[in-house]
């Protein structure tokens, strides 16, 4: 039987308290996030566990999880690379960047490398149109103003990082990219 780690359990309790007591279901999306960050993706077993913790049916959880693109109901590679190809990025090199990334990894968009390291997908507008071409890494960090050099450096930097290392992309938060 699955169970959240102690740290995640504490976050879960804090989360549930944000919503009215009789509206526990409101915590579903945030709880799916906790589960996905804990186990890397949402397996059927994970979704059953979340259903039980929230008090909804597993079918409801499956319906919700598959509705949203960021919830991964199939096991992805260790790193998820999503290049924006929406309108503005499409005008400024997004598709070419996606192509180049795929060529470097020897896969097509939507696929995972044979070593299970990288999954590449096209994304819809990520709200970073002014720093196109850009991509999101592991549902987290944005890597912006991409060029060939950066793609190569990114692949090599990520190659050494196992799944779950919160992507602090040292080389990409440097000057020139937007800082927080």
């Amino acid at each position: 039987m699955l169970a959240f780690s102690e740290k995640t359990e504490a976050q879960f309790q804090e989360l549930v308290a944000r919503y009215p007591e009789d509206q526990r279901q409101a915590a579903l999306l945030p709880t799916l996030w906790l589960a996905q960050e804990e186990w890397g993706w949402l397996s059927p077993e994970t979704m059953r566990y979340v259903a039980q913790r929230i008090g909804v049916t597993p079918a409801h959880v499956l319906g919700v999880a598959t509705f949203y693109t960021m919830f991964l109901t199939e096991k992805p590679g260790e790193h998820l690379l999503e290049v924006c190809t929406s309108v503005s990025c499409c005008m400024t090199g997004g598709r070419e960047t996606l192509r180049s990334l795929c060529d470097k990894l020897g896969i097509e968009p939507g696929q995972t490398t044979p070593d299970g390291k990288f999954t590449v997908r096209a994304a819809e507008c990520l709200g970073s149109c002014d720093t196109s071409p850009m991509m999101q890494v592991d549902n987290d960090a944005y890597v912006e103003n991409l060029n060939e050099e950066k793609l190569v450096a990114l692949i090599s930097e990520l190659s050494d990082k196992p799944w779950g290392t919160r992507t602090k992309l040292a080389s990409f938060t440097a000057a020139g990219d937007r800082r927080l």
Partner: protein
Amino acid sequence: MAFQKVVSRHFDVPNAHDIAVYESLGGYQAARKALAMEPGAIIEEVKTSGLRGRGGAGFPAGMKWSFIPKDSPKPKYLVVNSDESEPGTFKDRKLIECDPHSLIEGVIISCFAFGSHQAYIYIRGEFNQQRIHLNDAIQQAYDKGYLGDNVFGTGYTIHLSTHRGAGAYICGEETALLESLEGKKGQPRLKPPFPATHGLFQSPTVVNNVETIATVPWIIANGGAAYAAMGTEKAKGTRLMSVSGHINKPGVYEIEMGMPFKDFLAENLGGVWKGRTLKAVIPGGSSCPILTAEEAMNLTLDPEAIAAIGSMAGSGGMMVIDDQTCMVDLLEDLTHFYAHESCGQCTPCREGTDWLYKIIRRIESGRGTAQDLDDILDIADNMEGKTICALAAAATMPTRSYIKKFRDEFVAHFEHRGCPYKQAKVPAGAGA
């Protein structure tokens, strides 16, 4: 009154996201002032300012708040829409990154104005770093006693937390957002009833955009009249524009309502990139009908002027397009977006957006015929006004405008049996 920056006034101040810096700039004084006011007087001040929603629909903010029933026994909610997924739009992200406390201060004032004790900021799942950043700012406000059970020592309670979405454009539509917040698929609700009476958890709810709420502290500090003194007769004040595409200086700019596009392009945006010529402009996000260069160059940037030539000010997501761009290719990418993002509840939208995309892809690949254009317009007729939410129209309206204004490019695709501009190496949305 001469133009001055309102919501972007702290964008260039280093570390304005830190509460100490924010307060040194006069931050949280407006909230203190507001909490000493009559709630009704706050709403009046916002009405006087003429502030309209910045999420796309442009509904007057003060009026929206006044629809919240005063005598309801149910709790009232404020939900801030930070889903920001309309292609071409990234202003709310910038605001959260640079000046999160102005949003939090706006939340405090707004909640007090219409009697809410609980607010949620629904933030798109992709903005994970921004969410963490915003959570830090919220924690600072709690630590100072500006949020919690005794806001500024007044005894008034306001709780605020972020709520992370998970990747769905449709969750920007306010009722889909509420469904999503309730732990369901983000599928829009039939209206009426409206969120003002049956919103989050079937309780009275105000949904406002990030920029709308972040403008409120300035209005309370400086007075609604000072805000209304900027802009045009009908469109008051200033707004943020997210500008991207083929320009030299993409980014977020605050402009006074009614600024001529021509000046904006030359003075702020540094002109069209690579020394090329302007071909077209999408004025307010991908859902807005496209403008030709000529239309754009004669335009002033305010909702009325943009509506007068058949487009929309929308979310302020402006995309500038140069003369080397294939409009059919661009439309293929655009229709792919709507086909991908339709929530699937309404048959005309679910099927229609997909047909539009497939037909336009066929034209782009050189296998289209003149009949296709008639079919597209016929499909559009059968989508508009026949669906639960505005996503269907958000796909058909731009589609119509591309065909109307750049018909010769579609015809060229039929004649050349392919794309005369063909440079694209990957079909739109492959692998999405």
